[in-house]
């Protein structure tokens, strides 16, 4: 990887200033993304993975605010940009796909109207040329008979097709990066597989880089190149997907993988992480995971740093596991 990364995020902080206090939804997140790479951003609800995605798009609304750090897209600093600059960036350089495709689609406009509008917002293109590009985008995400589908309304599509249209819209201006926030969570298994198939092809063919935000480790395992695991607003572990899933270093990652039912332990109790995620308003000092961690000791009252380890990996833990420990023990009591 001699090429410079297309997206570089360092020490990103997004806080929410609520009545009840300051919620540090994203608190010092750093990662980088190369061309054609898929980064899986994994975490449970409240881990800050979605807020990270919104921060990358400049879409954080009050009472939230990006309070620090930097987002460099193709060498250009995005933090501190005006809303006007953001508008010209969004869709052109970086685009987003949501869990609910209706976040992108306007229910009262035909698909072609929306797509042509999206192209011509960024580029001075004739109506015909724009339509042709919209048609090509629909075809690229595997929508059969794109000419017919162009003149349809969003409600005439099924859930999976709607998500494809949303992806096609995200692709229209050939952005460098797509942020995908749980785009297949609401879909059925066979439909999810269809979408994953198209996405995989896209990234391989066009060099598009993607951040795939999800809670589903299995999807990340099948799709992503690298994975970053978030907990309480911070990345706790990062690395190539195979290494992380086979030999997790952080106790949280290990617990998460153990929680997924897997056929080699059929019928036995699942390893469970005790307790639940802490409230972002009342984070304990030190490691946020310490209260649920079997390895926690007095050292863990100080916040560990995200330290690089061998094999292009990083972990934020005072007592990391060894990479060669088996990921899944034979079920615990």
């Amino acid at each position, binding site marked *: 990887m001699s090429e410079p990364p297309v997206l570089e995020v360092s020490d990103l902080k997004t806080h929410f200033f609520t009545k009840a206090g300051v919620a540090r939804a994203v608190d010092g997140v750093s990662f980088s993304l190369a061309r054609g790479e898929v980064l899986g951003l994994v975490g449970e609800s409240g881990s800050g993975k979605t807020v990270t995605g919104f921060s990358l798009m400049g879409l954080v609304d009050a009472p939230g605010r990006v309070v620090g750090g930097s987002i460099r897209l193709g060498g250009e600093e995005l933090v501190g940009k005006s809303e006007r600059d953001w508008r010209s960036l969004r869709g052109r350089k970086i685009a987003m796909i949501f869990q609910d495709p209706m976040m992108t689609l306007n229910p009262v406009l035909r698909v072609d109207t929306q797509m042509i509008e999206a192209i011509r917002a960024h580029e001075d293109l004739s109506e015909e040329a724009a339509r042709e590009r919209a048609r090509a985008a629909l075809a690229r995400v595997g929508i059969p008979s794109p000419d017919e589908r162009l003149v349809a309304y969003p409600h005439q599509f099924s859930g999976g097709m709607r998500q494809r249209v949303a992806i096609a819209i995200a692709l229209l201006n050939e952005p460098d990066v797509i942020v995908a926030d749980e785009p297949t969570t609401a879909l059925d298994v066979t439909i999810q597989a269809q979408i994953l198939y198209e996405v995989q092809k896209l990234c391989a063919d066009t060099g598009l880089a993607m951040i795939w935000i999800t809670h589903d480790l299995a999807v990340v395992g099948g799709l992503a190149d690298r994975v970053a695991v978030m907990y309480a607003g911070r990345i706790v572990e990062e690395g190539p997907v195979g290494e992380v899933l086979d030999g997790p270093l952080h106790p949280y990652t290990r617990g998460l993988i153990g929680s997924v039912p897997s056929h080699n332990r059929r019928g036995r109790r699942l390893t*469970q992480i*005790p*307790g*639940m995620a*802490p*409230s972002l*308003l*009342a984070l304990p000092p030190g490691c946020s995971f310490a*209260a*649920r961690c079997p390895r926690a000791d007095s050292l863990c009252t100080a916040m560990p740093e995200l330290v690089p380890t061998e094999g292009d990996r990083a972990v934020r833990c005072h007592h990391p596991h060894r990479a060669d420990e088996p990921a899944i023990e034979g079920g615990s009591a």
Partner: protein
Amino acid sequence: MSASDPVDTPTVTDTTEAQTATVDTPLRRFLSDYCDSPLAVGAAVVLFLIILIAIFAPWISPQDPYDLAVVSIFDARMPPGSYAMDGTPFLLGTDGAGRDLLSAIFYGLRISLSVGVAAGIIAIIVGMSVGLAAAYAGGRTENLIMRVVDLQLSLPAVLIALILLAILGKGVDKIIIALVVAQWAYYARTVRASALVERRREYVEAAACLGLGHARIVFRHILPNCIAPLIVVGTVQTAHAIALEATLSFLGVGLPPTEPSLGLLIANGFDYMLSGKYWIAVFPGVALLITIVSINMVGDQLRDVLNPRLQK
């Protein structure tokens, strides 16, 4: 919410949290949300004062404006701030019969509010029963009830009340009947709409699974969850009822002169407006305005606070 005790170790109890938890009832939450708007708190305070005045009018009024032994015709049409022969001040002046206007307004509030609230409560009970019945029965019954409601809502409330009063005649009971007939349909529609939503929730299915009876499901499970929109509509409709009663009394078809509500006071003072004796009509009008505006402001805030879509 900061419930962070490990669920699999039930013996660990965070006592401070258990205490705050028992205090955090829906009522508490509601009060703290309501107090977010200082304007709405102000309106609630004003409304509370008005209600106190209405309740205690006989004890706090400077005079009993309907005691013929006290009222003197020689004090008639005196401007605000004058004094009676015996030295009692008329803060807001007197009306055409020599009554202290402040006292008359206090008594008028008492009548206006009690008529409005009584009509409101009866209309809520009628509308709620009809609405619940429609939502739970479904099919033909529901269709029939809802068409009656539509028909009712397509006619202006004043018109319905006027026609009814023309048939029934004057009187407190008659005007309450007229107000109820003019307004029950709003409640029926509101309750039906929310009951239809609640009926499909999983907790109703769970109650059916647990073998609970229809009456229990309707009244213990569905109804309490329909109360919030009902309260919102109830406040606004009570304000409407008070305004409607004032309109009818102003037109001379509402309350008899023996029950002088605010509307009647305004009507009486209206004759003197052109001769410059503005206070006789204007002060009761202002009292009516403050009452209705404060009820509506409270209602608006209730709508914001109780709206389930805005709840975190």
